[in-house]
C-alpha cells in the first residue's frame, strides 16, 4: 500500500512536469498561429495604428518569453487570466463548459463502459460463433463511419422521423438532471457507438489471450463451468489491458468530442476552444489545451494505479 502512495506521489510530480512542458508547446504553437485578435476585431482594413493600440491594450506587444512567464505564473497560482474577446475571467468562462463536457463524458461512459465490457466478455464466451462475428463487424462499422455522419443519421431517425428526442442539446445549469439527460441522450449514443467497439474488442482479445493460459485449462479440469472460468479465472487477470483501453477512451470522451459537440450545438469545452481559435482568443485556447492535457495525465495515472491494485505480484510482494 505504501508503495502505491509513493507511486502516486511521484507520478503526480512527474505529471506536473509533463504539464509544464506541454504548456511551453501550447504557448509556442498558439504563438505560431497567423494573425491575432486585434486583426480579428478590426478587420482587414484597419489602420496599423489602431491595431497597435489594441495590441498595447491587451498586452500583446510584450515579447513572447515574458508573456509566457506571466501566463504560467498566473496559472500556477490558479489565475488563468481573462478572455481577450470579452474580458471575462477564463475560470468563470470555463467552469460551466467544463462541467458540461464532464457531464456528457460521464453520461456516455455510464452507457458505453458496462455495455462494451459485457459484450466483450460475451464475445469471448461465444467466440467464433455467428453472433461473435456479427457483433465484431458492426462494432468495426460503427468506428469506421465518421462520427458527424453517425450523429446526423441519429438526428434524422430519432428527431426528424420519430420525434422522440431533441436534435439540439443546448443545456443550461437550471435544468433538472432528467431534462439534461434527455437533451444529451443523442450525443451520448453517438459517442457510445464511437468508443464502445474499441473497448469491446480489447476486452474480448484480452480474455481470449488468457484462455490459452495453463491455469484456465486447470480451472476447466477442476470441473468449473465455462462461466465461472471466464468470469472468475480469466477476467481478473485481463483487467490491466482492459483498464488501459477504458481510460484511453474516457480521455477521448473529454478531449475528442469537438465534432459531436458542434453537430448538437452542445455548450462544451470543445466548442469553446474551436470558437476561441477562430477569434484568436489566445489565453482561452491555451487554457483549454492545458485542461485537455491534464485530463490525459490524470486518467493515465488512474489507469496505472488501478493496474497496480489489480496485480497481486505488486500488491503482495514475496
Amino acid at each position, binding site marked *: 500500500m505504501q508503495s502505491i502512495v509513493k507511486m502516486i506521489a511521484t507520478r503526480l510530480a512527474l505529471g506536473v512536469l509533463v504539464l509544464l512542458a506541454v504548456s511551453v508547446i501550447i504557448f509556442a504553437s498558439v504563438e505560431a498561429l497567423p494573425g491575432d485578435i486585434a486583426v480579428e476585431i478590426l478587420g482587414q482594413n484597419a489602420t496599423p495604428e489602431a491595431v497597435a493600440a489594441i495590441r498595447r491594450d491587451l498586452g500583446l506587444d510584450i515579447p513572447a518569453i515574458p508573456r509566457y512567464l506571466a501566463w504560467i505564473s498566473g496559472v500556477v497560482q490558479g489565475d488563468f487570466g481573462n478572455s481577450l474577446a470579452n474580458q471575462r475571467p477564463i475560470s468563470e468562462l470555463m467552469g460551466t463548459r467544463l462541467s458540461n463536457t464532464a457531464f456528457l463524458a460521464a453520461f456516455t461512459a455510464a452507457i458505453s463502459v458496462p455495455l462494451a465490457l459485457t459484450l466483450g466478455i460475451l464475445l469471448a464466451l461465444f467466440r467464433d460463433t455467428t453472433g461473435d462475428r456479427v457483433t465484431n463487424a458492426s462494432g468495426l462499422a460503427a468506428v469506421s463511419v465518421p462520427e458527424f455522419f453517425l450523429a446526423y443519421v441519429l438526428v434524422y431517425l430519432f428527431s426528424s422521423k420519430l420525434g422522440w428526442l431533441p436534435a439540439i442539446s443546448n443545456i443550461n445549469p437550471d435544468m433538472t438532471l432528467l431534462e439534461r439527460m434527455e437533451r444529451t441522450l443523442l450525443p451520448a449514443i453517438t459517442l457510445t457507438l464511437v468508443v464502445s467497439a474499441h473497448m469491446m474488442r480489447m476486452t474480448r482479445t484480452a480474455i481470449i489471450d488468457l484462455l490459452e493460459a495453463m*491455469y484456465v485449462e486447470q480451472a476447466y479440469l477442476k*470441473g468449473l463451468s465455462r462461466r465461472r472460468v471466464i468470469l472468475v*479465472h480469466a477476467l481478473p487477470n485481463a483487467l490491466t489491458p482492459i483498464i488501459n483501453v477504458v481510460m484511453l477512451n474516457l480521455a477521448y470522451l473529454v478531449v475528442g468530442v469537438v465534432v459531436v459537440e458542434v453537430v448538437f450545438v452542445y455548450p462544451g469545452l470543445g466548442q469553446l476552444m474551436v470558437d476561441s481559435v477562430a477569434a484568436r482568443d489566445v489565453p482561452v485556447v491555451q487554457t483549454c489545451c492545458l485542461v485537455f492535457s491534464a485530463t490525459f495525465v490524470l486518467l493515465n495515472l488512474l489507469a496505472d494505479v488501478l493496474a497496480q491494485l489489480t496485480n497481486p505480484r505488486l500488491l503482495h510482494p514475496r
Partner: protein
Amino acid sequence: MADKKPILSIKNLSVSAGPENDPIPVLNGVDLDLYKGEVLGLIGESGAGKSTLGLAAMGYFRRGCRVTGGTVTCAGVDLLAMTDQQREAIHGTKIAYVAQSAAASFNPAYRLMDQVTETARIRAGTPAAKARSDALELFERMKLPEPHQFGLRYPHQVSGGQLQRALTAMAMLCQPDIVIFDEPTTALDVTTQVDVLGTMKDAVRDFGIAGIYVSHDLTVVAQMADRIKVLLRGRQVEEAPTRDMLASPQQEYTKSLWSVRKIQKPPSVGSKSPEMRIQVEGVHASYGKVPVLEDVSINVRAGETLAIVGESGSGKSTLARVLTGLLKPRAGRVLLNGTEAASGYRQRSKSDLRAVQMIYQMPDTALNDQQSVGTIIGRPLTFYHGLRGEQNRKRASELLEMIGMDPKVFLQRTPRQLSGGQKQRICIARALAAEPTVLICDEVTSALDQIVAEGILRLLEGLQKDLNFAQVFITHDLTTVRAIADTVAVMELGRIVEFGPRDVVLDDPQKPYTRKLLRSVPEMDPNWLDDIRREFAKDTETATSPEGRAAP
C-alpha cells in the same frame, strides 16, 4: 487383475488436429485400461500424443483437437458422449489432473487456499470451513512448511516444489478415483523432484487412487508406475509391467530410448593442451542488491569441456552472462585467451566478442522467424569477418555442412520450417560462424527429446574435436554431464562448491551438497525412490553437520 473390470477404459481412440480436410493424426487407435489402485506410466517423446491421451482420459481435448473415433469409458459411461455439464460434474471430483508446471497452473490472482478448495466448495458442496480443514490436513501430510500460513499465500510467493505439492493436494482434496499426472516434476530440480515424487507416491498409495503418469523421463516413470505403455507418433509401441519393461524392452524404438542414457565421453587423458581459454578469478556479481555470484573462480582449456551443474537459482546462467560481458561483475576478472577482457560487452574489443559465443536453451526464441537460415548464419560472417555476397554464401554453406544439414535444402528455409533439433543445429552454426575460441551452451538440450538431444551432444563433441574450442556447458542434467564433460563445477547458492576433473567430482564427491545432488538423479531401478527417501530421512535424523541443508 485380469478378472477385475477396469475403472477407466479407452478403446480404439483416434484424435486429429489441424484443418478438417488435411488432418494431422495425434492419436491413432490407442487402447488403454486402468484398474483400481494402479499407476500406468505413459512414455514417449514430444509429439507422441501422451499428453493428449492423458487429457482424453478426462474426456478433455485441447482446442484444435477433435476425436475421430473410439470411446473413453469411466464407471460404465462414455465420457465422449456426455454433455459439457455432465463432464464438469466428474472433473475434479472423480477424475483430477496434476499439470506439468504448477507455477503456470495456479491462477496468479488468488490465494492458494481459495484455489485448492474451489472444486470442493463449488462442485462437491463441501462447506468452506470443512474444505479448508481438509486442505490443511493434506498440506501437513505433504510436508508443506507452515501449513496454516501456506494457504494464505499467493502462487508467486512460494517455490516451485511447494506449488507442485499444492497442486497435488488440490487434485486429492475431493478424493477422486483417478488422477492424471502430466509430467508433474519435469520443471523441478532433481533434489526437489525426489520430495515431490515421494509425496505423490504416498498420496496415490494412501488414498488408493488409480493414476496415469505421463512423462518423457523413463527413470521417473519407473519409480511411479506399475505398468508402462510406450507411445510413438500417436500409436502404442508396447506395454508391459514396469519391471519387465525395464529388464527386456521388446521393440527397437523402446530399446533406443533406453540406450540414450548410456553415452559417456571417455575420460580425458591429462590436459592435452596447456592453452587457457577462459580464466575466471574471484568473480562477485549481483542483480541490484541481490548477490548471485560469490567468489567464483574457474578455468577452461582449449579443447576441453567444463560442465557447470547446480539447481535453478544457483547462478549458473549468471556466470554465463558474466563470461559474455552481459553482466558486469562487482569484483574479480575474466581472462579470455590469457588476457583480461573488459567487464562489459560494450567495452570489449571485437576479437574478444568474437571469442565467446553462446547457444541458448530455447532454439525457438533464439532465432528470428522472419529471416532465412542463410541470413541468420551470414550475419556474424559479415559482422566479424567482413564476408559479403558469394563469399558469405559459400561460408554459410560450409557451416551448414559442418552441422550435418544440406545447404541446398536448408539455406533458404526459415526457422518456422525446421524442427526443434534442426533449429538448435542452426544456433550452433551461427555461433561457429564467428570462429569462437569459447562456446557457452546454456541448457542447450533440455528443451529437446532425448534422441534429438543425443544427436546434438554428439555433434558438439565432433565439432570440438575438429575445431578445438573450449566449451562451457551449463546443465542440470547429470546424465548429460557424463556424456560430454572433462571437468565439472558444482554450484550452490552462487558459489562453486566443487571443481575438478569429471570422474573425480562425480565418482568421489567431497561435499555433502554434491553427494545429495548426485544421489537425487533418478535411476532405472524401480526401488530407487524408496531407497533414496529412506537414505535422506536417515541423513536428516543424524544430520549434525552444519553443511546439511534442509530440503527446499
